[in-house]
């Protein structure tokens, strides 16, 4: 009975709101006829609702409409100060992304020009390859002879020398 009462009591607000299917509604009513606990629950719920209903309505201030139309005017002004025509349709993130890409492309182009200008005299000053070997071999020049770097430069110099000798022939 207690379990049934709990189930019935859960449905009581929906019963008072007439939101139950007719079959369930009549079943609950039948139960209410024989169960004083559930009747008490029903009475308590409807009294709580009566208390809630005592809270009456408030009226808007007299200047409610005027205040609203002021806000609308502010909104319209801020809207007209926005870009118009085709620009109004382009979303701001798209403009930002386009600007970013343009910046990168411009930076890349300028960087390339500056780099080429700097490199031009340098290419003239670059020493011709020693013994036909690329100048970066100089990097290994300071390596001790018994180290890997030293061994590499020794081999490279030898083969470069033979290449030159071969070329001389």
């Amino acid at each position, binding site marked *: 009975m207690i379990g049934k009462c709990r189930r019935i009591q859960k449905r*009581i607000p929906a019963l008072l*709101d007439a939101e139950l299917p007719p079959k369930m509604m009549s079943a609950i009513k039948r139960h209410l006829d024989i169960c004083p606990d559930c009747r008490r629950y029903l009475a308590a*719920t409807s009294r709580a609702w009566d208390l809630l209903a005592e809270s009456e309505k408030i009226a808007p201030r007299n200047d409610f409409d005027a205040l609203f139309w002021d806000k609308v005017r502010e909104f319209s002004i801020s809207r007209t100060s926005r870009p118009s025509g085709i620009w109004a349709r382009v979303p701001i993130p798209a403009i930002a992304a386009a600007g970013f890409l343009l910046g990168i492309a411009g930076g890349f182009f300028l960087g390339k020009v500056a780099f080429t200008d700097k490199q031009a005299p340098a290419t003239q000053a670059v020493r011709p390859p020693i013994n036909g070997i690329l100048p970066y071999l100089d990097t290994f020049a300071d390596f001790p002879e018994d180290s890997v770097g030293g061994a590499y430069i020794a081999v490279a110099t030898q083969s470069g020398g033979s290449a030159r000798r071969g070329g001389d022939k």
Partner: protein
Amino acid sequence: MEKQAADPDYSLIREFISGREEAFSEILGRYKNLVLNVAYRFLRDRTEAEDVAQDVFLKIYRSARTYEPKAKFSTWVYKITANVCLNRLRNEKNAVKSVSYDGQNSADMGSSPGCFSPSEEHERNERLTVVHDALQRLPANQRLAIVLKRYEGLSYREIAEILGCSPAAVDSLLQRANGKLKKFLEPYFVDRDASRKGRKP
């Protein structure tokens, strides 16, 4: 299509979209009480409720063009009001704010001076304070469901549409809210009954 023709607010919105601003004044006149009172019962602060109502109408004004008459216009208005109220609560984090009822607010709650004797007036204000305290103790979604059901008399289906959930979920929300309200309010009316019985000879 018939549904649209039957909703007089829809034709007002159409007129407003086609450029007649006065049509919006009519909408404002029809709905300002409704919006204000939903916001007031939910937030329990007159100034905030007025702010919310202004925001709601500004949103309606801005997005009137996007209104699709899938549901009644009033449901759309309730939906916007509910969203603005919930956002306001979220932003201000005043869900657990304890509300003090000053004289101004008690007057707002509909006391009609002259209709009650001072002791009746006092008892009534006390009752209203208890009711509104109980409402404020509910979680936001349950409170909103209670306001829409108890004060606006909407059906579960309409509330579901406004809150973006199923009617079964509304049923469960209201079950929980009613259980809590009954628990919060029961001691009050049990005490009152006891004191009344005590007064009787």
